[in-house]
């Protein structure tokens, strides 16, 4: 953060400590101390979440009307997203400029202004300080000094980028434009779901996952696990290792996309490695798995990971933003915002809601992931001196046209190490 006062700096010691030296193997290893060390976590807040990165904060449809607001976080820092009277989207800290009160308490709402409960300093929807009660004192006594300038004491504002209904924000002045930040390839995948149609909010799900936030990114950037861990997917033919699939990254390696296509639901020889395969299973109520084709191309699942806090999920017809809110080194909140399009008819909405059973805290697919993340943290945290092995698909970090690879995870940590100077 660019504030001049008392800014935390990394103690030199922190950088050179042998306890925080990356294994010599480089890209093919991730040392386990990155998942639990409190000092690493502190630096992540500063360098990553408050650094030059666009964090997802809202969908426009969550704050459709002037005066609408949403309360959320970037990293663990509380912020507020509003729509001003002019229709523009604003983002500022949820921390009173006076003495720090987290003044906004409702998850969502509509307001004309924000009034801090403590001394009723009031702010407009842009975060500007409107009023300081008794600023000129009472009966000619007290009040703020004459040189006190309300313009200097507004809420700290974040830069905002809105693209096709999705709102991002950044604490840093150095973050490039959102389009440059994503890069051409990632932007085109982003625009596949966010094609300019108005979005419609379907609802929220929230999980508190007892694991380091990076394990969530590893999970989604890991196509290798899908056909092995997710028996439901495999049993009902939604995903298989031999489906035509590919992974792509942006140039920096921080963003990525996993694309796959529905395969068949029968046994082939390539699947001898999938011990969980069951042939010919049928649902009692097949409505759940009756997808409707709606996107161009033949991809049925597209999972896009956007540094540092977002996963855009398109799994058949269930669409969701998965926002990561860090809560210390060993825990994060996964906040799901499910949505559809304003032009969906009732039946389409019902299909989306029904398929939401696949994802979220009770997701027939995602349960496996949230459980396995907990198991990972429990294996990792008491062995900080050990390291994970990332050798599937080689040791590089390039795009690949199959899913038997950990390339996207290597790419992620390649960028991570740069930002963290590790």
């Amino acid at each position, binding site marked *: 953060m660019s504030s001049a006062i008392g800014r935390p700096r990394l103690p030199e010691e922190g950088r050179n400590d042998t306890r925080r030296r990356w294994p010599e193997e480089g890209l093919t290893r991730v040392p386990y101390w990155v998942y639990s060390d409190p000092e690493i976590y502190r630096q992540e807040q500063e360098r990553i979440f408050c650094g030059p990165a666009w964090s997802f904060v809202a969908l426009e449809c969550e704050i459709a009307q002037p005066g609408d607001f949403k309360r959320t976080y970037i990293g663990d820092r509380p912020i507020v997203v509003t729509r001003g009277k002019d229709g523009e989207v604003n983002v500022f800290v949820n921390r009173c400029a006076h003495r720090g009160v987290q003044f906004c308490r409702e*998850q*969502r709402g509509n307001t004309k202004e924000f009034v801090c409960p403590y001394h009723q300093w009031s702010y407009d929807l842009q975060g500007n300080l409107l009023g300081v009660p008794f600023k000129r004192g009472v009966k000619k006594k007290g009040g703020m000094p004459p040189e006190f300038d309300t313009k200097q004491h507004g809420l700290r504002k974040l830069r905002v980028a809105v693209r096709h209904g999705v709102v991002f924000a950044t604490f840093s002045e150095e973050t490039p434009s959102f389009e440059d930040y994503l890069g051409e390839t990632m932007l085109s995948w982003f625009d596949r779901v966010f094609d300019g149609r108005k979005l419609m*909010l*379907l*609802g*929220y*799900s*929230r*999980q*508190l*996952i*007892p694991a380091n936030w990076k394990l969530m990114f590893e999970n989604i950037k890991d196509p290798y696990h899908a056909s092995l*861990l997710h*028996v*439901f997917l495999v*049993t009902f033919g939604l995903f298989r290792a031999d489906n035509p699939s590919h992974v792509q990254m942006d140039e920096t390696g921080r963003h990525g996309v996993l694309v796959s296509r529905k395969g068949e639901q029968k046994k082939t020889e390539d699947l001898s490695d999938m011990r*969980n395969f*069951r042939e010919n299973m049928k*649902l*009692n*109520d097949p*409505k*759940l798995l009756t997808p409707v084709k709606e996107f161009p191309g033949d991809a049925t699942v597209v999972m896009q990971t956007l540094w540092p806090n977002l996963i855009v999920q398109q799994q058949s017809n269930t669409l969701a933003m998965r926002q990561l809110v860090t809560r210390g080194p060993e825990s994060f*909140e996964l906040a799901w915002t*499910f949505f559809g399009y304003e032009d969906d008819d009732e039946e389409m*909405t019902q299909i989306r*809601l*029904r398929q*939401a*059973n696949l994802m*979220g*805290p*009770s997701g*027939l697919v995602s*349960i*496996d992931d*949230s*459980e*396995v993340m*907990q*198991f990972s943290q429990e294996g990792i945290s008491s062995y900080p001196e050990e390291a994970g092995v990332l050798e599937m698909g080689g040791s590089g970090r390039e795009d690949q046209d199959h899913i038997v690879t950990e390339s996207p995870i290597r790419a992620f940590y390649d960028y991570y190490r740069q930002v963290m100077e590790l």
Partner: protein
Amino acid sequence: MEESLKLRLELEALYADYVACLDDGDYDAWPEFFTETCLYKIIPRENFEQNLPLATMLCESKGMLQDRVYAVKETSMFGPRALRHLVSAIRVTGQDGESITAQANYAVLQTLNDEETKIFQCGRYLDRLVREDGKLKFAEKLCVFDSNLVSNSLIIPI
């Protein structure tokens, strides 16, 4: 005994059987508490209050309940756990010729390996029941939970 009291006592027995079925892990028996065309939802308070349609778990028929059971038993990967329901303040809130509406408070306590027991969630049952062959069945069961935030995964029905 008055009819209304009799009904309440019948409901109390039904809820007791219902939670014992789940706590005992007798998942195959669980769909039998519902009608064929039932609606079952677990929904966070924020969606319920904001009229957002998304449920955390949604079953639109007894078949879907059975599919959930199949997933719990055969396809989902999750750590061992014990669940314990507490139900309180069971009330009949309405009744017409065809169906009965009822409410109750519930809390579910969860115990994971090597951990102490924690409150997994609490909330309200908002139910509609009908009588089939003399037995009360859930035609609609809504579990609105207070916390919004799920402690990792919600695997077993509530």
